[in-house]
């Protein structure tokens, strides 16, 4: 249990530091794509990533650096993608909003609000189709709850008992529009309950309950009990897009005694809990910070050093296969279909 918490802390720290690093380097204008940071929102990715198995599947959103990293996505490939490099995770064709790392089953992200949700359900459909033991985690924000496709998907997922967990990070903002101007109720999870889905509501920075809810939801999905909806209230400390941010982003590595305001930082909260339990000490935090900083700088340097656009003609990536499909070798004898209903038109003789 504590080992999980330390791992969650490490993943949150890594996400926080990567996002700050991106914000710091962004004005150099080498990363030239719309970039949605997740400062303040590190907890859900870290918890979900830490408790998932490597072969579980994640599907993300336009704000998914955190989800990608938490699942184990390659950091250099992330930076390379932001730099438009052919060595990026999407070869520079996707940018910040389209991240993928299939080695760790991070299956991609959509820049259309709610767009990834049915795709995640489709991945879960395949798992059920093949009786595979994995599960799928679909990330969404509060604005996605305004998209019809989310309800359509929830219905399908319930109907087919898909091994799927919806994680709604409710930051109450759609770009800058507050949720009160957009939704009939600012609480989101209960409407899925009325559809028959189990759901959890997690207040801001209630790390213990978040961990518990994710654990239970994963177990439910794995045991064939179907989908679960988790609503987690978060604060977005950054602008919708771009390197502008506020909030207590730097408090976590400062001495708990010296820094006040840590009560709104998920990293500080988990850190303080672990220190109070005697699981880690403040030295640990300092060395973690140095270690992650080193990793980030090395990864960025490597990505920047090789940052050239893809050499191939990007048109080569429009289609996966040629014009002629190939029939698979037949393994079973072919039965004839018997047709009972037939309308035969007068146009028969036209051919």
């Amino acid at each position, binding site marked *: 249990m504590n080992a999980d918490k330390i791992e969650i802390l490490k993943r949150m720290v890594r996400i926080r530091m990567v996002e700050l690093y991106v914000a710091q380097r962004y004005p150099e204008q080498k990363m030239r794509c719309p970039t949605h940071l997740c400062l303040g929102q590190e907890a859900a990715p870290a918890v979900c990533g830490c408790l998932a198995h490597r072969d579980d599947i994640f599907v993300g959103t336009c704000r998914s650096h955190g989800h990608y990293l938490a699942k184990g996505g390659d950091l250099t490939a992330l930076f390379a993608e932001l730099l438009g490099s052919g060595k990026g995770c999407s070869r520079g064709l996707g940018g910040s909003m*389209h991240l993928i790392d299939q080695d760790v089953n991070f299956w991609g992200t959509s820049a259309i609000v709610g767009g990834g949700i049915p795709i995640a359900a*489709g991945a879960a459909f395949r798992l059920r189709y093949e009786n595979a033991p994995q599960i799928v985690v679909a990330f969404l924000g509060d604005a996605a709850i305004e998209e019809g496709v989310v309800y359509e998907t929830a219905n399908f997922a319930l109907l087919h008992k898909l091994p799927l967990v919806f994680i709604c990070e409710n930051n109450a903002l759609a770009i800058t529009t507050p949720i009160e101007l957009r939704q009939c109720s600012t609480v989101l999870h209960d409407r899925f309950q009325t559809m028959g889905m189990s759901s959890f509501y997690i207040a801001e920075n209630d790390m213990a309950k978040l961990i518990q809810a994710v654990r239970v939801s994963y177990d439910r999905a794995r045991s064939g009990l179907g989908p679960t909806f988790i609503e987690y209230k978060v604060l977005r400390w950054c602008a919708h897009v771009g390197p502008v941010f506020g909030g207590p982003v730097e408090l976590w590595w400062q001495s708990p005694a010296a820094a006040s305001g840590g009560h709104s930082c998920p990293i500080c909260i988990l850190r303080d809990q672990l220190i109070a339990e005697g699981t880690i000490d403040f030295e640990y935090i300092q060395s973690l910070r140095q270690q992650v900083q080193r990793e980030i700088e090395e990864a960025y340097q490597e990505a920047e050093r090789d940052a050239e656009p893809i050499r191939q003609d*990007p048109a080569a990536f429009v289609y996966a296969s040629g014009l002629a499909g190939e029939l698979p070798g037949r393994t079973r004898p072919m039965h004839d*279909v018997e047709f009972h209903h*037939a309308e035969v*038109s007068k146009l028969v003789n036209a051919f």
Partner: protein
Amino acid sequence: MDHSRTYAQAIAEATYQAMEMDDSVFVVGQGTRDRGHIFGSVEGLLARFGPERVVEMPISENAVAGICVGAALSGLRPVLVLQRADFSFLALDQLINHASKFHYMFGGRTSVPLVVRLIVGKGWGQGPQHSQSLHSMFAHFPGLRVVAPADPYTAKGLLLNGIFANDPVVILEGRPSYGIAQVIPAEPYTVPFGQARVVQEGTDITIVAVSFMVPEAIRAADELGREGRSAEVIDLVSVNPLDVDTIITSVQKTGRLLVVDTSWSYCGISAEISAVVHEKLFGELQSPVRRLTIPFTPAPAAFELENRYYPTGVQIARCAQQMICGVELCPDRPMS
């Protein structure tokens, strides 16, 4: 014994054989349990493959399209059937923003082997929201293959080709074509994308027809033949990619091109074909390219109005005659 199949049966047979050959193929649609079997096009599938592989869908076109995308990304080969092409508008976010772009926007690391079967209604007053031929719209987007088979042989071969290709494929099936019967191979076979079909050869004019305009074009060619004119009829089959070579070769020979489409001419595939021919054969044409399509209005429901809405063999023949003679020499005249 000859293996005769209607268009609907050819589709059902292709799906059946694909599902026999590969467990990853499944069908999802509305009405899979109905005794009409989606106009016969999924007959025999449920009984043979069961509810796990013949999935009845909620009326949630976009979610189901997205679920098919997710399943396809996982290596399954979904066949999504919408009883009317018009319903695909509800699924366009998943089909256009997602399915058509995933292979590209993730740098080729993932692919979406998805077939979407769209049935285009006509006859019995289908009206404005059940009659739209959407091939031109789908053809506008890179990343999709778009085909419109006109006969059972092509329908079966294209469907098998689409199921085992690794890209999203949109197949527009003309409801009027469903009853057309033809002797086809019993075995599974493929018809590649990007190939138009020369239905009959001729020397005076090329008539390129789309989907259920092909039989009308054949009627027109027969009529023209009786009048001593020789028309070459081409079934377009593939809307994206376009078989430019077949069309250009034909028009080089005939010097004239008439495009007949089931959809609107404005920004439609008939405009694209005309543009390509003018770009490549400017100066070799003996008359300007002409297009005969439905009028630029929604489809009317009333029987008489609907009948007048679609080009007929007689109109095609008349238009072709005018092009061959020159309009001034050959004013409109009644034809049989």
